[in-house]
Structures are given as C-alpha cells and as structure tokens.
C-alpha cells in the first residue's frame, strides 16, 4: 500500500463518533504500522438527541474518550504526523473542546512527549449575536421542512453550535497545528481539509471524508470501531480495511454513502455539496475499493448549519406492567383514567404547562403511530410513563400520578379488583431533563470563519494537570 507510486496521502481513521465506544486496538496498530500521513476521527453526532447539547454533557465516559485520544496522540507524535479530531465530546460545545484539549495536555505530560503545536476552535454561537443577525434581516433558514427560525424559538433555545466546514481546520493547519481539536463540524470536512490544503481536488477530498468518517462502517462484515485507511491521489480515492477479517468491498463502500443520510447522492457541507451520483466503484485488491467520479459543487454564498437545543422541563419516569388480558384489551382506558387524574390536579397539559407520555411496550412503544400491529398487543405489557414539568417537584407529581393512578383505573368488568397494574417500584425516578431540537437551520456568512473562534497553543510536558481536566 505505502509503496504506491505517485503523490498520494494516506488517512487513518480508527473510529466514527469517537468516545461512544472505544476504538479497537489491533486494527489501529496495524494501520499505524503502515505509516499513514494523518490520524483523524470525528467525535460527534446529533443522533444522541438534544439532551447532551442542552445540558452540555457527553454521552461517553471520559475514560473511553481519553483511551482513544491517547492511542491516537501517541501514534501521531511518534510518526510525526498531524492528528485531527472533530466535534469534540459528542456535541462539539466549548466545554467539550476544553475537556479534550486538557486531555491532550494531560496525556502529553504523562508520556513526556516532546513539545507540539495544538490548534483548537470553538463552535458555539452566541444567542445575542444570532438575534442581532435576525433583527438585521438575516434569515435563519430551516432544514428538512422546518420554517425560518423565529425570535421566540431562539429565546426557547439554551445552546447553539455551528457546524464547521473545512475552513477552521485549514486555517489551523496553516498556523502550524500538529494536533487539532475541533468544535462541532461536518464529519467529512475533518478529512477533506488536510487533503484540500495539500492541493488535492475538492471532489476527491470531500469524498475521502465522506467515506472515512465512520471508520469500519464502510467495510464488511459488519464490525464497528475498527480502523480503515483512505488514500487520495489526484485521480481517485482508495479505501482499505485494516482489520484482518474485514474488507472494503464495492458494496460496503457504496452502501456507506447512504448511511444515515436521506439520500445516497448528496452530502451537504458549509460551502457546497458533494454529488456522488456518478461515483464509480471498483474492487482494487481484496480489501481495497477504488472510487472515482465524485463531484463537489461549491455554493456562491457559504451557509453554515446550526444545531440548537432548548429545555422543555424537568423529567421523571415511572413504570408499570399489565398481565390481565381484559385490562390489556382496554389499556387506553386505563391510561385515559390516569391522565384524567393528572388533569384534575394540574389541568390539561396546555393549561398546566406539563407533558405526560405513555409508552406501551408490548404494543406500540417503539414505533408509536407507525406500528402496523398496534391492535395486536402481547400477553404482557410494560408501560413507561414520563412526566415533564417546569419544576422537579411538579414533574415528579405528574409522573407519579400518571403511573400510580393506573392501579386504580375503573374498568367495568375487571375481575382483579385489588390493583389494575403491577409495579416493580413504588416510586418514580428522576431522569435527564427533557430538551428538544429547536434549531436545525442554516445561516449565511460572509467569512466562513466568522462563527468559529480559533486558538493556537504550545503543549509542553510540564506537570501533569489533575485528572479530569477542565470543565
């Protein structure tokens, strides 16, 4: 592979959504042994729902994040090649970038690494700044069928991140960064940026990023968290599985283009769109697929995607089971009874500013209104109850009333008159607050860097900082 003639660059990606589960060491070490030119991974996702962005937390334990950063940093410094991480800590908020930067410092200190230049950037968008743009007449345009952002919806938002294109990465590389920790970014740009900067065509550079961002999800058989290597030339992209049991096949690589996207042909980033309609895939060797024909279509005006999360309320959860077939057949009446008891106390959800949700496992909890078999419940049901309200006290009472009153539901001919449901617990449990995605929008910018705050620093192996790092 590395003996390939001609000017190529090779990119090692050990993990997609770094931190969500640890990278697999064996295939990573195999990849490192081939001496790649870059080691890179995306660490973020909006798949995890709006709670982590809203509460400014990660879904991953620090140990998993640190494990991967340590493997990558030690390998990158040993080879003397850049290491790039995008969308730090799931959400790419400022606190997550600071946390990763501190982890990099701690790992460097722990291993006594020679000094290196660390670049990082923040992606959070100040609400007041966005408001000023909107008041100034700038439209914040909705994606996926959403309308334009309103000031009211902006007010209901707690935290916003802008999704970076290649621009902050290229700028930090230009400033000499050897390690980059990025705020929220499009997955593909982490890989595309260094390729574009090195003079490779945008068409192939963005495709390289698209195909590598989820690591071994582009290989078969299915196995996550294994390393893959992408190699770019001026004519093509080649992608190779590093795990001895995996192969990048035409089917697996082509199939990856459609993974978690509405459409397999187009990928949108700040600054343009990658058109994969005319992609051509061929099996290059047993574990490598070669791809040509991708096209990048730049836009005149750069529009940056914004993700925002707003708090709905505090949340409690209750649970109940049902076994009596008569009750199961009338479970909506049971739930209706419990809802009415909550309404007697707090009024309707609109009047009382609360939410009460029932998920009936064994009938249609998972699919809800999409469930074709909702009229065929199982012989046993599990009912999860969620109460959401402005205060924890009220949320607890909503959830507790909504759960416990199912016990007292008044069904006309029920034989069991000592309690209508089975409780595994007497209490309800406090869970994460409820948030919702308030922004899935884009905003136009004059300068693609204007929403991002770039920093450069030197990492020297001084005294190790207390484990845990910056908040």
């Amino acid at each position, binding site marked *: 592979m590395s003996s390939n003639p001609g000017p190529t660059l090779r990119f090692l990606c050990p993990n997609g959504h770094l931190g969500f589960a640890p990278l697999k060491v064996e295939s990573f070490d195999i990849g490192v042994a081939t001496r790649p030119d870059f080691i890179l991974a995306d660490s973020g996702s909006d798949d*995890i729902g709006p709670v982590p962005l809203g509460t400014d937390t990660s879904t991953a334990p620090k140990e998993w994040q640190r494990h991967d950063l340590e493997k990558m940093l030690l390998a990158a410094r040993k080879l003397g090649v850049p290491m790039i991480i995008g969308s730090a800590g799931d959400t790419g908020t400022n606190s997550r970038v600071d946390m990763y930067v501190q982890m990099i410092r701690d790992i460097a200190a722990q291993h006594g690494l020679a000094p290196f230049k660390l670049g990082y950037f923040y992606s959070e968008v100040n609400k007041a700044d966005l408001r000023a743009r909107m008041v100034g007449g700038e439209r914040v345009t909705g994606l*996926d*069928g959403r309308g334009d952002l309103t000031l009211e919806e902006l007010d209901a938002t707690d935290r916003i991140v802008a999704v970076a294109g290649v621009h902050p990465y290229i700028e930090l590389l230009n400033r000499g960064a050897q390690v980059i920790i990025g705020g929220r970014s499009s997955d593909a740009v982490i890989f595309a940026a260094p390729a574009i900067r090195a003079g490779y065509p945008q068409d192939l550079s963005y495709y390289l990023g698209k195909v590598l961002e989820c690591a071994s999800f582009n290989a078969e058989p299915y196995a996550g968290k294994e390393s893959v290597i992408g190699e770019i030339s001026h004519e093509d992209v080649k992608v190779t599985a590093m795990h001895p049991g995996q192969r990048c096949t035409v089917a697996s690589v082509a199939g990856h*283009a459609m993974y*978690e996207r509405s459409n397999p042909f187009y990928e949108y980033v700040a600054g343009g769109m990658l058109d994969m309609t005319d992609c051509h895939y061929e099996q290059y060797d047993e574990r490598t697929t070669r791809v040509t024909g991708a096209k990048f279509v730049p836009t005149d005006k750069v529009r940056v995607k914004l993700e925002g999360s707003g708090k709905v309320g505090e949340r409690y959860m209750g649970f109940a089971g049902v076994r009596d077939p008569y009750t199961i057949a009338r479970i909506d009446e049971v739930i209706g009874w419990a809802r009415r008891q909550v309404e007697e106390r707090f009024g309707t959800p609109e009047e009382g500013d609360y939410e009460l949700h029932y998920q009936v496992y064994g009938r249609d909890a998972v699919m809800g209104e999409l469930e074709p078999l909702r009229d065929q419940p199982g012989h046993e049901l599990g009912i999860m109850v969620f109460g959401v309200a402005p205060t924890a006290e009220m949320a607890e009472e909503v959830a507790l009333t909504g759960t416990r009153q199912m016990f007292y539901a008044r069904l006309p001919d029920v034989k069991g008159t000592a309690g209508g449901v089975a409780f595994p617990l007497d209490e309800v449990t406090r869970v994460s607050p409820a948030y919702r995605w308030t922004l899935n929008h884009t905003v136009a910018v004059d300068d693609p860097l204007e929403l991002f705050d770039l920093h450069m620093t030197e990492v020297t192996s001084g005294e190790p900082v207390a484990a845990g790092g910056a908040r």
Partner: protein
Amino acid sequence: MSTSKPLSELAKTVRSKNAGVDRITFDIIFRDRENYELVKDSGVLTRESVAKLYRIDQSRITDFVTYDPAFAIKFTILRTRPSGSAGDADIFGAQQYAPLLGVMVPVA
C-alpha cells in the same frame, strides 16, 4: 405457479436510522443484482406501498430512491417531532424497519 418470499429472505440488510434530527431513513440492501432487481421491478416497494405499510401520508416520505451501486432501495420519512423529544422511544430511529421484513415479494 407463482410463489412469494418475504423481503427478509431476499435482502442482506434491512435497517433504519436517523438522517438528521427530523428524519428517519430506511435502507434495504441486497447481496446481488438479481435479488435487487427482482424486488425493484416487483413494484412491492414504492412510495405508495411504504406509506400504506407505515400508515402515513405520502407527503411524509421525503425521498424514495433506488441506488444501483449498492444494490439498495432507500426511503426517508419525516418524524412527527424531532428525535429525542420527550415521548420519543427511538432516539436513533434504529428500530423502525421491522414491518419491512415481512413484505412479500412475488418470485418466479
């Protein structure tokens, strides 16, 4: 004599997953061109049929494409509320594909 087989026997992969926070996308992927074209040409998977299967209005299907390089049929639906909102039981949209498994496809 005409017979039929469930999609689960003909497809290599049948899956669902978030496509952003407001949509869920469905992928039906075949191991070979033969089964892919059999299902594609059978007409059992169309905008109309999946809308009926999921009991939703066709306007909620934002994309419906066949994708030759991967031997795949793919469609995407709008969620009624964004992923992870209170009351959403499938934050990743990962378990919405089950009804597709039993779709019967006429063979031979």
